[in-house]
């Protein structure tokens, strides 16, 4: 079971959160092209490894928490607030993956 460190509430079980997908996507400016919105809405890197993603703390403070997590090992590297910048780690996940 994932334990997510909410920046406001501390470490909590995954059941308190609603996963909300890829957090690397930045919504284009309103006047951007249809293509830009298409990319934002649909195109995903879907990486096998480190992934920056949203976990919405619906059963807690209701903040959208940005999480850097490994999709192969489920290890969480870092968490932060909705506007935080969280660079991907250069290291491999725990256990050498």
């Amino acid at each position, binding site marked *: *079971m*994932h334990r997510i460190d909410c920046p406001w509430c501390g470490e909590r*079980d*995954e*059941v308190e959160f609603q*996963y*909300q*997908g*890829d957090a690397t996507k930045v919504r284009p400016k309103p006047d951007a092209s249809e293509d830009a919105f*298409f990319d934002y*809405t*649909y*195109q*995903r*890197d*879907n*990486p*096998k490894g480190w*992934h920056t*993603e949203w*976990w919405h703390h619906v059963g807690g403070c209701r903040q959208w928490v940005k999480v850097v*997590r490994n*999709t*192969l*090992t*489920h290890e969480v590297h870092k968490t932060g607030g909705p506007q935080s910048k969280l660079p991907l780690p250069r290291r491999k996940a725990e256990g050498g993956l």
Partner: protein
Amino acid sequence: MRYNAFQILKQGLSGHKGWKPMWRDPEPKAEYDVIIIGGGGHGLATAYYLAKEHGITNVAVIEKGWIGGGNVGRNTTIFRSNYMFPANTHFYEKGMKLWEGLEQDFNFNAMVSQRGVINLFHSDPQRDAFARRGNAMRLAGVDAEFLSPDQLKEMVPILDFKNARFPIQGGLMQRRGGTIRHDAVAWGFARGADSRGVDIIQNCEVKDIVIEGGAAVAVETSRGKIRGKKVAMAVAGHTSQIAAMAGIKLPIESHVLQAFVSEGIKPLIDTVVTFGAGHFYISQSDKGGLVFGGDLDGYNSYAQRGNLPMMEHVMAGGMAIMPAIGRVRLLRHWGGIMDMSFDGSPFICKTGVDKLYLNGGWCYGGFKATPASGWCYAHTIAKDEPHPLNKDFTIERFREGRMIDEKGVGPNPWIQ
């Protein structure tokens, strides 16, 4: 070698010394007419139909591990064609027909068992939504019928009609749906493809797709470069990774879906029962295990294993409708990686790269689609254009706004 009664008798009496390997273990050749990346159900079926329907036998199926080790061996063995949109209905019905004749076709008993698939409903709006789907099926020539609570009681006596949180009002049934011995599907297609000359190359990982002049011409693998006049992906679960080698980005996320099996028990459930409101479905294998599952764990994952919250949720769903299974013990649980496309429907299509073909985005529907997917994909590769059955399963449909959205939740596959 063909399996028949004489052969079985003979081998039994002679200590089984004469059985041959079901597929060879060849070294890769320098070049093939078609290279299929992925030795799962779909890749093997594609090779089988390329050879059988189109006479294209200079084909390599390249598998990173051992054939059939992915989702074809990790699913809950159900097949059905109870979809709502014509593109899906026709396609899955093609699959249904292929399943029905499969064993005689490839001379391998995959234990296709048309024991029926029942979807329970609990409210008027649910009934209406099922009616829309059931009628769509009937109009497409697919069997579907409504069952009354009394019929359900008779068919599935262990359903709880007394104390259910969401009282059962009825069910939509497809009698021709059912279960299959999943591993046997991979093995049967592999044997059939191999016997027609297809090379199944195991323990060979594709590292890159080589593109020259806008066309795919080869793959770099852990066993060297293999040239192919056509290159076809069939790696659902990992489609994003392989497609990225060709610079293709897709509306797909990989999610883990858990599956569960109980200890073997004497026959208790004779059909497949789906309890959508509780994210639970169940059938019983011929060997006696209750095979069941639920919904996605709900986060991007390639881990092939799930976590406790979804397990508890799935089994609560089971206890909610059939509380007699409480003392039956869970034997094993595991996870498979689903290519969750953003409209719940698959891709079987050409790509922006010439001679490179895509098969993926299967969501929960991959196993049941296996023969239809292989059949249509083989056609698409052989003719370099889609068959009418898969013409809508394109990448472009998203850009064009022509999604085939069975679930209606949009590009958020984790929403339940």
